[in-house]
């Protein structure tokens, strides 16, 4: 097992009587791109604020780099770059000065500013007041700020918000390249599965404050394998017949579901049913997209 970078234990945050974050056990390992997914208001940003020490957990603990955030906040934050919710900036400073104000506090070398500016392609705009930046440019400046301190862990909350399609692709490629090139671990939140799908290796899905799925993206994809649905006249006895011949199928609402593993097996099952005088009304493929699985998981009332 590789190093665990972030580990939360029963992390809970209560506002009033509502548990906005409810017993969340988050686990992020080194080198992962962890997609933190959930509909708006699910508790993503609150969780991230607690990870950064901006808000205090009501209950539970947070360990980052194996250290407790309550006790060793500064040594943790030194190695963390972050972008929370919407980009932070000082409107009256230009992009370069904005980075300088943070660089001083991080004790990073001056050359780092030009480096991060060129990474997010803001070198040409560096001397313009940030007040006049578009949201996408502010977002890129925010990402540049997060990279200033050579972080080992990047916490990015909805980083592609407000970016145009080419900007999204640029940032996505940048994010994907970082674990490989620098061994950085990234946790990235989003309410769009498609976005996480294209970057993340691990996913955590949070809904109404609770973590409802946490595993690799491929595990999530497995759930999206298609099944063959058979509608027959006497479903239950058909299911028993198949079982007695060694075929396990699922019986749901008078329909039989067969894993779509091989065409040969499907053919054999149908042949067997026909030979046993079952009437097959329909044989159709049922496929779930990742999006549907996600919606199933969070429950439709969550909405997107």
């Amino acid at each position, binding site marked *: 097992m590789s190093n665990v970078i972030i580990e939360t234990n029963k992390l809970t945050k209560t506002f009033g009587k509502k548990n906005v974050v409810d017993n969340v056990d988050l686990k992020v390992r080194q080198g992962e791109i962890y997609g933190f997914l959930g509909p708006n208001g699910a508790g993503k940003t609150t969780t991230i*604020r607690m990870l*950064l*020490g*901006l*808000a*205090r957990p009501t209950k539970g603990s947070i360990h980052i780099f194996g250290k407790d955030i309550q006790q060793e*906040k*500064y*040594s943790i*934050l*030194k190695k*963390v770059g*972050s972008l*929370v*919710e*919407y*980009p*932070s*900036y*000082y*409107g*009256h*400073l230009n992009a370069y*000065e904005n980075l*300088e*104000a*943070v660089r*001083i*506090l*991080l*004790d990073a070398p001056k050359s780092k500013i030009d480096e991060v500016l060129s990474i997010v392609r803001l070198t040409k705009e560096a001397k313009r007041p*940030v007040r006049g930046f578009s949201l996408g440019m502010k977002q890129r400046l925010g990402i540049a*700020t997060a990279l200033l*301190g050579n972080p080992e862990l990047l916490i990015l909350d909805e980083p592609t918000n407000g970016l145009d399609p080419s900007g999204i692709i640029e940032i996505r490629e940048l994010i994907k390249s970082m674990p490989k090139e620098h061994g950085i671990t990234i946790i990235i939140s989003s309410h769009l599965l498609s976005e996480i799908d294209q970057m993340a290796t691990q996913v955590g899905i949070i809904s109404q404050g609770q973590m409802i799925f946490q595993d690799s993206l491929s595990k999530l994809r497995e759930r999206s394998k298609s099944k063959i649905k058979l509608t027959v006249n006497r479903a239950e006895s058909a299911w028993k017949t198949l079982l007695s011949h060694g075929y396990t199928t699922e019986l749901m609402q008078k329909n039989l579901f067969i894993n779509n593993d091989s065409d040969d097996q499907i053919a054999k099952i149908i042949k067997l049913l026909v030979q046993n005088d079952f009437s097959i009304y329909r044989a159709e493929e049922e496929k779930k997209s990742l999006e549907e699985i996600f919606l199933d998981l969070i429950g439709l009332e969550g909405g997107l």
Partner: protein
Amino acid sequence: MGKLFHSEFLKLRKSSIWLLIFVSPILSLLLGLSELNKFPDLEREQWISALGIMTISHAVLFLPLLTGVFSGFICRYEHVGGGWKQLLSLPVSRCNVYFMKIIIVSLLIALTQLLFITGLFIVGYVNGYPTDIPWSVITTSVLGGWIACLPLISLQMFVSVAWSSFAAPFAVNVIFTIPNILIINSEKFSPFYPWLQPFLLMTPNSVESFGAFSGSAAQFVVVFGSLMLFLGSGFWYFSRKEI
């Protein structure tokens, strides 16, 4: 702390609020040069009387108001662009951040005070006052005014950090400062009203009170007591605030 100062200074320098340090000293300079500052019978205490006249315009209203304006602005650029969450997710201590903001405002007030005496010297030069400048009276006046501003800065920093709007802390400041005009006439209440202390401590008594602060013991209890109260509660609030 040094790094924080450096960073705060950069943010402040590029905003134009520090220009406000010139406003009150210039007004009191004009007052000092005007006809209001002509007392033929006070020949021997020209410096002191000029200082007294200029203090009226400077310390009754402007100085307390400036503490609020500077505190408000220094927090405003953090509130507006989401600076707090960026700043506090860096490896800096909240206490130091808060303390540094107060130091910066205190320095701005100190610069205002320095400009104010510069104004006094200009008045003295133009009117040809005697060369034996009463240094200790001037120093205690300016320093006393500055110290009396510290509790006000602490309170204004507290409300400016707490409220993201600029108007609300400023309203608090005005509400407490305007009564100065009335309380100034009450011998009974004036030593106990923190917003009036910058004026009381800046007003020179006479040459005889050489160097000694003009304030009474009660005034010092008021100034340092309110400083402790406002500073402590502000620190307590900010270290707990959820960003």
